């Protein structure tokens, strides 16, 4: 029952969030700030993790092929396919859910318990729109770049580990990453990314917005925001994959 209540309120919250902004210029400036905050400031962690992810895929693929009839270039091929299809869009989205949804819920939750959202409402500002819309737009704009960078770095991480350990030749790895490339896989990954960007910012924002009480409740909201973004990401990942592949 509780979940139905939340779905209904989440829908109402979205309607508020996407109402027409009062002053486009103010929203625009906030969006630029958020691009910096949500996107550029996540670049470091995304890059490092992507490199390690690709290295692990390469190592595991190699250690699982004992059959001499399977060519070495499968390592490159598998690293590319898994990075583009699943690891970069989904794993990185889960990491961003932890970082970004948690931050958003805590920030907006704090504003709620300190009556700053009431102050916005009293002034006649659409508080949900003012606080959340710039974050949604910023994430929709910047997350695809993060994910594309992640794809490159993941494949590159595989290359580095291959070069360092010599489990296969780098030439075979390079051949593998060029093999049978289908651009549609990237389209699919970017569509997922946009859906995840939407989920992370709106679910995080919603849990911050409905916070009641004090600092303890802000902590709880932050955690619930992260947990529910993760749940929504994993379910929608399944739905999108079923529909598109």
């Amino acid at each position: 029952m509780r979940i139905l209540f939340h779905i209904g309120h989440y829908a109402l919250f979205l309607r508020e969030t996407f109402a027409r902004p009062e002053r486009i210029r103010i929203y625009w400036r906030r969006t630029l700030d958020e691009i910096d905050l949500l996107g550029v400031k996540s670049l470091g962690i995304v890059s490092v993790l992507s490199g390690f992810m690709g290295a692990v895929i390469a190592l595991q693929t190699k250690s699982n092929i004992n059959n001499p009839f399977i060519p070495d270039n499968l390592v490159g091929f598998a690293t590319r396919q898994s990075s583009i299809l699943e690891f970069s869009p989904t794993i990185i989205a889960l990491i961003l859910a932890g970082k970004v949804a948690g931050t958003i819920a805590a920030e907006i939750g704090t504003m709620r318990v300190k009556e700053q959202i009431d102050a916005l409402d009293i002034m006649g500002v659409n508080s949900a729109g003012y606080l959340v819309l710039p974050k949604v737009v910023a994430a929709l704009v910047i997350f695809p770049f993060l994910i594309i960078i992640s794809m490159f770095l993941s494949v590159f991480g595989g290359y580095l580990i291959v070069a360092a350990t010599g489990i296969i030749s780098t030439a075979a790895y390079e051949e593998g990453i060029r093999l049978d490339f289908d651009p549609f896989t990237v389209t699919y990954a970017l569509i997922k990314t946009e859906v995840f960007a939407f989920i992370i910012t709106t679910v995080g924002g919603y849990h911050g917005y409905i916070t009641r009480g004090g600092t303890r409740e802000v902590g709880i909201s932050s955690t619930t925001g992260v947990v529910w973004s993760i749940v929504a990401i994993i379910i929608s990942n399944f739905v999108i994959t079923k529909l598109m592949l």
Partner: protein
Amino acid sequence: MIEVKGLSKRFGEAQVLTDISAVFRKGRVNQVIGKSGSGKSVLAKCIVGLHVPEEGEVLYDGRSFHKLGKDEKRAVRQEIGMLFQGGALFDSLNVMENVMFPLRMFGTTDVKGMRDRAEHCLHRVSITPDKHRLYPGEISGGMQKRVGIARAIAMQPKYLLCDEPNSGLDPQTSIVIDQLIAEITEEYSITTIVITHDMNSVMESGDSILFIHKGRKWWEGGREQLLHSDNMELNEFVFAGSLMRQVKGAMGG
């Protein structure tokens, strides 16, 4: 003028306000007093529309707020300034930006005009220019309240609501804030409602006092009548402190 008619508000099972009617006049400080938990903040939030009452109406110079459409509500809200119990300044904006915020959002002048207006308001509440670039976390509680007042009056409101403007402040700073609110009210002819449980400030500036007890209007009048009322709950509230009892003793009450 703000008029409240038959206002009732429940949260689930808890009846917080019951049938409150009152008139808050223009150009003077109307005070609402009562014990902690009596429903003063809820009343304030019903008046400004942050809570929707189950029954009754709130009239802003004849306009029944809760019956207005969305856009009309926004229009009325832009005429309301509110000072919150905790100040409610935006943490991510500095003092100057906080005061400029409503102007940026709704103002009609250019940036220069907004800046001038914000500087004027900050000057009015005695915040010196060296504080303009500081963030709310970097200034004292009393200053936060004053910046809150500056932000509340930036749009030249017709109505001003202050929820416990002097809670958590020393008596001297309290008086400064009270006087500031009184001066501004008179100067711009604002309808001001001040919620307080500070007897000092009631004795200082209470021409029109509304006493709320258990969510009901229990008594109303001026400060002279306050001291001579035979309402038991009111007396308990007013003479809880020894200072006020001495005042009463000195008057031969």
